[in-house]
């Protein structure tokens, strides 16, 4: 894992439901704990910008998109399983642990 790469993450939610809040909290914790603060995180509410969901082809929420570093990654769900999120973001190899 390179030390100086920066993460740009977008989290799409549909309104501020309990599930949305849970996903935001989970993601923020993972960013602080595992990305060493080197990240940019944006939360986008579909209800406010439905056209954005169309353009980005968002189907489910919460959807986390890793914009940078490439390749583009999508993770759907409330991100409740930290380890799986780390694998999904390439921060933890599958066979590690």
């Amino acid at each position, binding site marked *: 894992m390179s030390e100086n790469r920066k993460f740009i993450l977008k989290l799409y939610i549909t309104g501020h439901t309990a599930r949305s809040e849970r996903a935001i909290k989970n993601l923020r914790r993972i960013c602080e704990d595992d990305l060493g603060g080197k990240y940019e995180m944006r939360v986008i509410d*579909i*209800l406010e910008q*439905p056209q954005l*969901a*169309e353009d980005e082809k968002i189907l*489910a929420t919460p959807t986390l998109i890793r914009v940078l570093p490439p390749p583009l*990654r*999508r993770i759907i*769900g*409330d991100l409740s399983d930290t380890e799986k999120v780390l694998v999904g973001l390439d921060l933890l190899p599958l066979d590690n642990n």
Partner: protein
Amino acid sequence: MSATENANVPVEKLVTGIEGFDLISQGGLPSGRTTLVTGTAGSAKTVFAAQFLAEGIRKDGAPGVFVTFEEASEDIRKNLLSMGWTIAEWERRGLWRFVDASPQPGEDTIEIGEFDLGPLLARIEHAVNMVGARRISIDSLGAVFSQFVNAAIVRSELRRLGVALKGLGVTALMTSERTEEYGEIARFGVEEFVADNVVILRNVLEEEKRRRTIEILKFRGAGHQKGEYPFTVLPDQGIIVIPISAIELKQRSTQTRVTSGVVDLDRMCGGGFFRDSLILVSGATGCGKTLLTTEFIKGGALKGEKCLLLAYEESREQLIRNAIGWGIDFEALEKDGLLKVVCAYPESAGLEDHLINMKSEIDRFKPDRLAVDSVSALERVGTRGGFREFIISLASFVKHREIPGMFTATTATLMGGPSVTESHFSSITDTIILLRYVEMLGEMRRGITVLKMRGSRHEKDIREFSIDENGMHIGKPFRNVVGILTGKPEYLSREESDRLAGMFQE
């Protein structure tokens, strides 16, 4: 069975514009509700879903939203151009809007924990509001399940979608796949939670014949025709449902009769053919089919009606020579604009191309009557399944022009018996006329009978007819002979025939 809650409030229908479907559905899809259209792979679900929107735009100027879970929107735009649907142009004019929820190629998606399909609902609502959509098609539900691991969430979210659609006040059509032609209604049991109305598309392989049918399984609280109806998918037109029994029920609107060209045959038919009827003339080769079509042309020409003759058995020169032998001058009729003779070799094109050519000739010449001699010559061009579709499409095309169409079919054997054309054609034709050779005392005679005449009384006799330089002459009924139609005529003695006559005396 318990009564439905609002049994007294009739369900309104939305005319779809899909040819034939509005007849069998008795007015279209239940308005403001969701209908599930289910079928196996290749059963034309996507075409049906798109056509629902396309006809709304073309016939009603009603904007629509197409939600795709399977094919990418650019593929749909491209593929459906062959149906003559200019989706890209409709999008520019704000009449069609895609919600593209197809899987994104080259993108890994991981599912971690709970989720909802809120964006899908938001996107659909957004699209509906943007174009003011009144129709919406969703293709297909099974593909939603394949995009997610957690089927339970998808199920409950689709149920939520069903409720949301009701709130939007749109008439919705959802497609879903099934694995067998006669089995569970749809995969994942979606019919139970998304729709009160179910339509099944089938594409059955039957004795090496492909047979497409459509069946309305249920419309909650609304009437519809029951059973399977054949349909076909044609380039530039899309789905055409052939409402065989619905035609019987609804289409006998015109009582206008036209002449067959032979006065005595008109009498046998109870006053001539109906103006919008299909007439099948069946007989062995040389039995008088071409003569009858020639009389049919002459009969029309005498009344100033234009006739189109599509010939697949004889050359133009032969046809003209034949007609002159019966006292009719085809070339003079053509000069007067009352006739157009188009000859083609059956093998010169595939069945689909023949069909397209026939249609464009009809559209160009705009005849008042049509004769095809013979349809059975085209049998050998395609497969049996293809021929059936061809017959049905041609018949429905002619029927909708409201002109009489005379089609001849050559029987396989000299003495009669059924032909493939007959077996495909007989249920959709209004009138069937049989021409038969009759062997009597070592002499060949010719017989004619009206086997069927929908919506009218007709004579049941088999009459003898002769041919001379003035054409066809119908004479007296055959007496003392049985078995003409089956090709095995047998004499009855005088006493025997009297006895038979006595048995059926009224």
